[in-house]
């Protein structure tokens, strides 16, 4: 028997998803160990071995594949515990990194401070030499000034260095020469060179990304080596792959070279799993929402994948590497309820986290959280939370809500809890609007796929708020990202800037740019042992004198043929779809900015189980009932409780009902009816 394992290390929990050769699967959760996350990973492996009734070493040896999503890079940035880093850059622009184009995100808040830069000014070292916008050298690189910079690096005990020069996307000669000298002089240093990391126009985007890459480099590298050796120590001899923020996988060595590609690795597995579970409903699109302890992630899956963005941020720092477009707001089980000065009820964004946690955890939390409200509303069983491993204190939840919400608003405790439930649902619905309505898409046209430990209790109400008719809750809801990691492909993204009016570019030039990137992709994928390799091409285009570009996928044939008019047609149509107008009739020219290639190494994902078919009648798995709040009637009622572990395909559950699992509870509200599909998801539809 062999196993494949997806592991998603989060802030509070490490989620694991186990797939066995016999087709059986399991979701597991252990507490994360932030000081050394690999310890939590090993705890998880022990837990899975135990569940399979095997000694750890045997289980590890039988595991052929581990796919791992890590928050190591993210945490290094958020807690400023990355490597002491320097920046060598073009004379005259060394402050771009810290200026962040002069933005202050909160305009009325004069106490709101700028972000502390990852490299202090004294370590942002200017060197002489200049390339112009055409890629032509206008002043030679002064290697002497680079040499003096290396002296500073040595003296200051820097362990990582970023090198980013003006217009290096057009001509990298100066960066290469500087990097060669640094690598030769200080061979132990981690070097991050902008023309290697992200050879793309826009200086601030590039310098910020290159510095982030340098800053997390030594940390990620150390972690990968530590993890690899711990896994080997436990007996693991299979393949280890790392989840990247672009939604694809890579070998650890590749992420050591481009560590910034793991900056948002955690949630990146979710959309793929969502696509697979949605496909059981005949859909290749869905809205994925994932509600955890502190945050709520929303993303839109279309044609089987989430969209990429190139303007992401971490801690207000720009990261321009491609990453999945996942929008995060501060709403989770730990979100704290409070009354603002105008007397309005608010939920979050502050969270009680895991410590002190919600009041009902009995770990010293005194503020009322979303989880406390859910307990008061009867949605959670105090004796069966986490399968009974954590007993919840109902009295503590009541009194926290009573003191902080009910009394100030002159409501009963239960009314206050219902209000908290309603407000956080409305916040999450707005989070969904961010990724749909604001991008010109109607959320009602997509099924809502709900994940996260806390998500399934709120699923129906988020859907109601948005008038979404169909909700899908996969059996792996609580570990969806870990599940998705097993289903992803190997993937590397490449980009080259080429700023020219579209018609002015030679066919050969464009083709050779594409070929160059495709060859690099092939080289990496072959080294990773990929089977089928596929390249996808996209062009970043805009109307002349526009500011924002549109990324337009194009076929290799159009590139090969140099068929600019056909590409222009596609652009007009895409611009119209996105922004409601096009300028074809006006004869406005197009401008190419970037050429992108994505190299995919298709994996053979494990087949997920099909649920055995049962009847519509689910009375056999009814465990009992309890008093719970029914939003449609605004009152409490005796609500049946079902055993969520014994569902069969075809079972029908009429709301109001609760489906309990050890890792999550599904609330089917009165207006919904759930039916279990063959992929094991509970599919909820608004009753007529």
């Amino acid at each position, binding site marked *: 028997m062999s196993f494949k394992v997806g592991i998603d290390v989060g802030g509070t929990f490490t989620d694991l998803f186990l797939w066995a050769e016999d087709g059986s699967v399991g979701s597991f959760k252990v507490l994360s160990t932030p000081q050394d996350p690999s310890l939590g990973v090993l705890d998880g492996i022990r837990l899975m071995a135990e569940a399979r009734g095997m000694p750890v070493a045997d289980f590890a040896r039988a595991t052929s594949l581990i796919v791992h999503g890590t928050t190591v890079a993210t945490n290094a940035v958020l807690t400023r515990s990355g490597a002491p880093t320097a920046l060598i850059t073009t004379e005259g622009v060394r*402050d771009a990194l810290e200026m962040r184009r*002069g933005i*202050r995100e909160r*305009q009325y808040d004069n106490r709101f401070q700028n972000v502390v830069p990852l490299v202090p*000014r004294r370590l942002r070292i200017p060197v002489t030499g200049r390339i112009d*916008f055409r890629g032509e050298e206008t002043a030679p690189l002064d290697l002497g000034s680079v040499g003096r910079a290396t002296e500073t690096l040595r003296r200051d005990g820097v362990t990582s260095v970023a090198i980013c020069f003006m217009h290096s996307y057009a001509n990298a000669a100066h960066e290469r020469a500087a990097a060669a000298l640094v690598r030769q002089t200080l061979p132990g240093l981690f070097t991050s060179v902008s023309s290697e990391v992200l050879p793309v126009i826009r200086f601030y985007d590039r310098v910020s990304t290159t510095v982030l890459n340098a800053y997390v480099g030594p940390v990620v590298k150390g972690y990968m080596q530590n993890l690899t050796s711990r896994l080997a120590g436990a007996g693991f001899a299979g393949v280890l792959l790392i989840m990247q923020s672009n939604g694809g996988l890579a070998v650890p060595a590749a992420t050591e070279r481009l560590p910034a590609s793991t900056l948002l690795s955690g949630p990146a597995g979710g959309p793929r799993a969502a696509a697979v579970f949605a496909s059981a409903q005949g859909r290749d699109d869905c809205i994925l929402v994932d509600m955890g302890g502190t945050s709520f992630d929303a993303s839109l899956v279309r044609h089987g994948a989430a969209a990429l963005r190139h303007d992401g941020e971490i801690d207000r720092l720009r990261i321009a590497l491609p990453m999945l477009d996942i929008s995060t707001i501060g709403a989770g089980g730990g979100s704290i309820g409070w009354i603002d000065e105008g007397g309005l009820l608010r939920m979050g964004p502050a969270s009680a986290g895991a410590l002190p946690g919600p009041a009902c955890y009995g770990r010293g939390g005194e503020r009322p959280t979303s989880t406390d409200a859910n307990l008061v509303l009867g949605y959670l069983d105090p004796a069966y939370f986490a399968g009974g491993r954590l007993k919840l204190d109902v009295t503590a939840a009541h009194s926290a809500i009573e003191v902080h919400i009910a009394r100030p608003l002159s409501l009963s405790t239960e009314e206050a809890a219902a209000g908290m439930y309603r407000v956080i649902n*409305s916040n999450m619905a707005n989070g969904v609007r961010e990724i749909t309505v604001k991008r010109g898409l109607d959320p009602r046209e997509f099924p809502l796929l709900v994940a996260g430990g806390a998500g399934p209790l709120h699923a129906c109400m988020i859907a109601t708020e948005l008038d979404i008719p169909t909700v899908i809750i996969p059996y792996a809801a609580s570990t969806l990202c870990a599940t998705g990691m097993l289903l992803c492909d190997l993937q590397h993204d490449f980009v080259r800037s080429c700023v020219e009016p579209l018609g002015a570019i030679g066919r050969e030039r464009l083709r050779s740019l594409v070929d160059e990137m495709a060859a690099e992709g092939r080289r990496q994928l072959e080294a990773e042992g990929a089977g089928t390799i596929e390249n996808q091409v996209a062009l970043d285009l805009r109307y002349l004198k526009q500011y924002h570009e549109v990324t337009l996928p194009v076929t290799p044939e159009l590139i090969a043929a140099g068929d600019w008019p056909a590409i222009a047609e596609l652009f007009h149509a895409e611009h119209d779809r996105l922004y409601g107008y096009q300028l074809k009739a006006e004869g406005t020219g197009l401008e190419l900015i970037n050429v992108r290639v994505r190299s995919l190494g298709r994996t053979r994902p494990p087949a997920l189980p099909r649920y055995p078919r049962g009847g519509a009648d689910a009375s056999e798995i009814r465990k009992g009932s309890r008093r719970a709040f029914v939003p449609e009637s605004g009152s409490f009622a005796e609500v049946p409780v079902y055993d969520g572990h014994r569902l069969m395909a075809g079972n029908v559950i009429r709301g109001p009902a609760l489906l309990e699992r050890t890792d999550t509870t599904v609330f089917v509200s009165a207006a919904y009816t759930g039916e279990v599909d063959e992929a094991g998801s509970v599919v909820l539809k608004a009753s007529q």
Partner: protein
Amino acid sequence: MMKPKTDKVLAAIIGNAFKAITDEMSLTLEKTTRSPILCEAKDFVTGLYDAEGRMLEQTENLPILSFSLSPVCKHIAERFRGEVYPGDVFFHNDVFSFGNQNNDVAAFKPVFSGETLVGWAAAKGHQADIGGAVRGGYNPNATEVWQEALRIPAVKVYERGRLRRDVWELIFANIRLPIVEEDMRAEIGACTVGERRLLSLIDKYGLDAILAHKEYLFEASRKMMEAEIARIPQGEYFGESTVYYDGKNEGSTFKIRVRVKVEDRHITFDYSQSDPQTKGFVNGTYTSSASATILTFLQMVNPDIPHNDGMLQPIEIVIPEGTILNAAYPAATTFGNHLCPPNADAIIRALAPVIPERVTAGWNQLLCSLSTGLNPHRNDTYVDILFMGLKGGSGAMRDCDGYDHIGMIDASGGVLDQDYEMFEHTTPHTLIKHEYLRDSGGAGRQRGGLGVETIYRVGGDATQIVAFGDGDVEPAFGLDGATVGTLNKIELHYPDGRILTAKSKDLISGVPAGTVYVQHAGGGGGYGPPTERPIEKVRQEVRDGILSLESARDLYRVALDPATFELLAEETARLRGTPV
């Protein structure tokens, strides 16, 4: 009508929904407009208003525009009472009927639920041209409105869903650039988005519920604002500031004087004692000056008060017509928005003595330039507003440093620098330097925000450079023993060695290729005695090169070894008069 019971939870949800709508309107406008001042600098605002024109919610990118829609909306609602129909669209820019600036043209769309007018969706943005004598609208020689702009008093461009083609053509026949027509279509588009979403909200919760909870939201904001005002000691406070050079008479100065009266839960800003209006274009309009007042005051209160009409109810603003902040018909007023920085100075000076914990020291004032000409690389014309050059530092607060390179208070960090590489692609210029300006922030226990130095080499011949702004005479003031920030300046170093210092309102033609453009945006004022600044902070700033050894010694009384930047403890103790 029976008043439905107020549901406090529903009120919060409706408040959320209003905000989501105006955000969506804003995004629509950002993505669909083409003029860089709209899609890059985001010089626009979108909002929802009730049937009477009271602000329900808005999304503001530049605070100076934030409070400029509601007065116009109230004006239109009143002026066209009984003549507003579903499918109407109004345009408006007229500064003598509550417009804030000629170039800021608004679109208003009434929202009807059945036969009932229930609200308005509106968008307003700075248009690239608005007719008048000078392309782009900044005419430093103007003495009356017609030399600046086409006046658009509230006018219907659509009635009952039908385009009034004659009216439309009359307007755009008087505007130079076709891009304005497209950008105004984008404004109508944003209003349509707002209308649809407001109607679906009404569908969902019912009109009566929306109306009842709207009042509750107003009340919630009003209470929050009243609570903030109640924390200010009651009394009358006076502040003044100076405006330099009206664009006509070099050396001319004008005073803004404000009397702030705080009584109970109400605050009044009375500008009656301010100087009369100028003969040039350096004049405010009622709306631009009221906006300046509100945004300055909002920075002194809880930043999380939801922005709606209720928030404004406890605030009264008195600006007699004929003064520099509210020029009488038919004065020129294009510079009016840029009177915000000196206006803010007067308010801060008035309130600093009574709420020292809530004010900033003086901010760097705006001095801006734009270059136009032919880009030989592209064989095409270009216009570049040098956003990166205009952004100086904010004033420090009692408990925190000023913000570096944030820009004038009326944008407060809402306008972004151009990207350096894109700048060199879209203009013929070469960037030489864009860095923090050493010693620019006023020295203090909390230092003022840093300004920047911007240097570029002009490419292309016959470049025209327009300068407008202030801050080249009087620096940003410090508070409580701190020093001032540095001044603004723009210099042109011609290839023949001549150096020309631009006036704060200036138009310079025929600048040859190879000229070096040098701009300093100054720093903000400091707060508190510089000798109270922690020595280690001073030392780090010297190490980082944003503070000179001399300033560390002379202003902060910290002596450092010039080679190693190590602290010279004895010397410092002697300078500070205390052991360190």
